[in-house]
């Protein structure tokens, strides 16, 4: 446990963990070519980046409840050092997902771009993705310390609560992307939901210690 905690405290380790999933598509496309992927490689990449964005978004949101529920747990403390980084990288994958979508739909014929955005804003499932993306964009832009100062802690905190909206919209978007409900949505967002419920129950309890930890974790 102590080793894991030490590793998770390291920025380098976290960076590696964040970049590796982005490289994954190289495997079925180039290293061990899989014709099921090769038939439509950019679609595979598009799905993979969307999937990674959702996983990272759901993951980063578990950090705070983990710390609230187990304030003395070293791993929870280690993870909470990286909240901003993981959140921003989740946005980066959403950005790559959107880029893949735009290239996929236009085939680089940019005269089609207007049509692609028209579709994105008229199809509810895509519009939901677009709103989630816009929230993540705003949160990323306002994530540097300077932005926190400029906004003021209270307003910044309120603004960044939107991340929960983004997560809910992403879960809906991921589920609606398929013709039948994909179970992966449950195992990506389910643990987060359970942790949040546990956290709310814990924060309701009139235990001064828990209250204090929760108060700190909000920031």
């Amino acid at each position, binding site marked *: 446990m102590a080793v894991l905690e030490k590793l998770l405290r390291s920025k380098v380790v976290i960076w590696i963990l964040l970049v590796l999933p982005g490289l994954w598509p190289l495997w079925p*496309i180039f290293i061990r070519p*899989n*014709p*099921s*992927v*090769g*038939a*439509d*490689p*950019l*679609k595979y*990449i598009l799905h993979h980046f969307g999937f990674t964005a959702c996983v990272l978004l759901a993951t980063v949101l578990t950090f705070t409840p983990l710390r609230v529920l187990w304030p003395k747990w070293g791993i929870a403390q280690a993870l909470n050092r990286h909240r901003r980084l993981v959140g921003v990288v989740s946005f980066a994958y959403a950005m790559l997902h959107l880029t893949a979508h735009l*290239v*996929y*739909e*236009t*085939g*680089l*014929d940019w005269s089609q771009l207007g*049509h692609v955005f028209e*579709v994105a804003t008229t*199809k*509810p*499932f*895509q519009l939901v993705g677009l709103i989630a993306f816009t929230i993540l964009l705003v949160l990323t832009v306002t994530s540097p310390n300077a932005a926190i100062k400029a906004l003021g802690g209270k307003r910044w905190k309120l603004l960044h609560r939107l991340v929960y909206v983004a997560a809910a919209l992403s879960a809906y978007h991921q589920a*609606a*992307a*398929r*013709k*039948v409900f*994909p179970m992966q949505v449950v195992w990506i967002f389910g643990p987060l939901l359970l942790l949040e419920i546990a956290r709310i129950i814990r924060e309701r309890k009139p235990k001064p210690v828990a209250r204090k930890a929760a108060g700190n974790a909000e920031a």
Partner: protein
Amino acid sequence: MLIRTKKDWELPESAVTSESAYRTHNRRDFLKAIGLGAAGAALASRDLLAATGGFPAKANPDFPASALKPTAEEFVTSYNNFYEFGTGKEQPKDLANRGWKTDPWTVELTGLVNKPVKLDVNDLIKQAGGIEERVYRHRCVEAWSMVVPWDGFALAKLVALADPKPEAKYLKFTSFLDPKSSPGQSSGNLDYPYVEGLRLDEATNELAFIATGIYSKPMPNQNGAPLRLVTPWKYGFKGIKSIVKIEFVAAMPTNTWKAMQSSEYGFYANVNPKVDHPRWSQASERVIGEGSTFIPKRQPTLMFNGYEKQVAALYKGMDLARNY
């Protein structure tokens, strides 16, 4: 470039491939070229799987391989929607080949017909007069397309065998039900068995086809062995796979996807670039296997998938936006 008279359902010249390019895809031509011919086709047939009757098929000159560039065979057999064997495109190739038996296979023609019959698929092929090869465009409702050389026989021949009574207005197709062999059926990702339907006049249209093979070989399990429906002017989900029963009925049957989500999937499912899916546009399509790795080829989707001349009359006066 080939110099030839273009049939009206063919693609523009830009999409036509040279014959030598096609040869690399077409195994039968390849076998012929090296002198194996029928013997090669027999070697290729796996005697425990699918219907082997009738091979090698004669190419139907009305639907030639030279007119459309067939998609690479490995993509056609690796990129499949066959939810009985998983919802992932890569799953059917694996999960449909883990002991699921498609030989022997019995097909039942029943309902409002004068000659109801239950027969082995190879006998059916014999009675239908053998098989032929037709190269058709294939357009999935998910906005991707392929070109597939099918082997099989006209559905009209099967209809003639059954000899429908005058009350018969529709065909109801039913696929297999075997949850032990089908992880999709045991998990219940759709309502099984899979059901599809056609109007009788659609079924007797010259394009409607029962395929028992692709690329001059018996149908691979993941593509719907041993026999499946092919209606190239409709979205791929109409092409019910692994058929066990064809029933002639008076009322419009409810097809599986329509039952699942009627706001998104209808009975007709005609390819129509002007009628969007509620979640995406149908105006254009990704051409599987074409373009480069990161810059896929797209092309505009054609009305009735380019088969307007053959089928438009079937839907005269119908509101196609409401009858999707």
